[in-house]
């Protein structure tokens, strides 16, 4: 029995025929759509490496069934850069050494983008750390990650102000 699932990934709407309902959103992205930027760390919702944005909210794609996400709008790390131009959050992570090995980085960046959309942390480093606690970094780049998130928020807030003015 097939399970046809239509979802929009990085702006492209596609229909995937799943032969098994056990496929997670993470496995759909990596194994069926070959978008391997999203990482599988623990596969149990504990590390945050699989974080993507679904319908505007950051979630763990390892704990989401693909078939349940029929009609969803998904944004992954591959959907951020515009050709050669990196997203401001990606640039901030590089500028602040917000990574070492890089494995957790796509999840960290997607989580940071979700955090900014939520608009709860502001410029308070403690609120940023609390809001990023669902993303583990075994290299311990937390200091750089916090600085990168704070700077990216500042840059994006300034850009938004310019647009309004």
């Amino acid at each position: 029995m097939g399970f046809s699932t239509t979802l929009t990934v990085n702006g492209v709407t596609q229909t995937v025929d799943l032969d098994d309902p056990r496929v997670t959103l993470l496995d759909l992205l990596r194994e069926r759509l070959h978008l391997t930027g999203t990482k599988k760390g623990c596969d149990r919702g504990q590390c945050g490496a699989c974080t993507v944005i679904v319908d505007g909210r950051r979630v763990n794609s390892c704990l989401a069934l693909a078939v349940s996400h029929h009609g969803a709008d998904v944004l992954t790390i591959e959907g951020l850069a515009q050709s050669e131009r990196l997203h401001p959050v990606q640039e901030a992570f590089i500028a602040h050494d917000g990574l070492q090995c890089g494995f957790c980085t796509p999840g960290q960046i997607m989580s940071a983008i979700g955090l900014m959309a939520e608009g709860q942390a502001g410029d308070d480093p403690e609120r940023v750390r609390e809001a990023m606690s669902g993303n583990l970094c075994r290299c311990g780049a937390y200091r750089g990650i916090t600085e990168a998130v704070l700077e990216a928020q500042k840059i994006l807030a300034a850009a938004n102000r310019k647009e309004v003015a």
Partner: protein
Amino acid sequence: MNPFDYVRPATVSEAVAAAAAPGAAYLAAGTNLLDLMKGNVTKPERLVDITHIAGLDRIETLADGSVRIGALVRNAELAHDGDFARRFPAVAEALLSGASAQLRNAATVGGNLLQRTRCAYFYDPASACNKRHPGSGCDARGGDNRLHAILGWSESCIATHPSDFCVALAALDATVEIEGKAGRREIALETLHRLPGDWPDRETELEPGEMIVAVRLPAEAAGFAANARYLKLRDRTSYAFAVVSAAAALRIEQGAVKEARIAMGGVAAKPWRAREAEQILAGARPDTAAFQRAAAAALGAAKPSGDNAFKIELARRVVMRALALAAAGTPARMPALPGSPFAAVSGVLTNA
């Protein structure tokens, strides 16, 4: 993960019909269920995906002033709803003290109520567990059990209920709307979860196939908004389950406690309402001596189930501190570390 049949009903009645099949389980976000299925802890034969049912994702204020929260409202959405958080700040703080931002964005209200214990022996199919496999024994007894129950446990099971949300809801007399084949009924949240007794596999009062459709908070629960807190001791400051926690809410008039509400988390197989402690505070001045008497009463029946005698004293202190924080007043803004005893600014004693 075992293979399963997947159905996606469009209405509550279709869902209830689909879940009548033996071995069926409801799927909402799946943040707990999929984890359990990946570990072969639970093996449902059919998943009834309720996430595409319309109308279950609303937060409504009813004519009598009570608030009705649909079963599919996401934990984060509820905690960040400005009006809800102002009226029920301890509930918002409890929600935000739990899990991670990603999980709170996905996890639903109904799913939070029905999440399973995080007892490591329940999660390990190689261990004996009366909850997972009735009659097989309990490896948590005599095992690594420093985080296990100190109230209401039995020889069969010493697991705790992991929810923070339910603790604040129990303190505020929340009710649960349930739909099943026999129609709709409503029960007190406090009676939803069962103590283990000889049947720890029977965790709630839900009949097979019944579905939670909404949670309600009575209008009078908003009367505690000025003095309501949730305090949660954890092994890590963030993204950890409670070692012990407490929701405390006070109605203070003319310098005296008119009414108190206290519930504890991490201490039993259900959120533990401390009514005796509430009675002690009624009419008392909100001071340390009264909070001490109340906290002692709250833990009066506690006994260790293993290497966890420390939790009794810890819970006593957490209840006292939660009461003191509540008496000091609900903070104007949600603390940077919700529910934490630690301040965002180092050197400051509490987050009050």
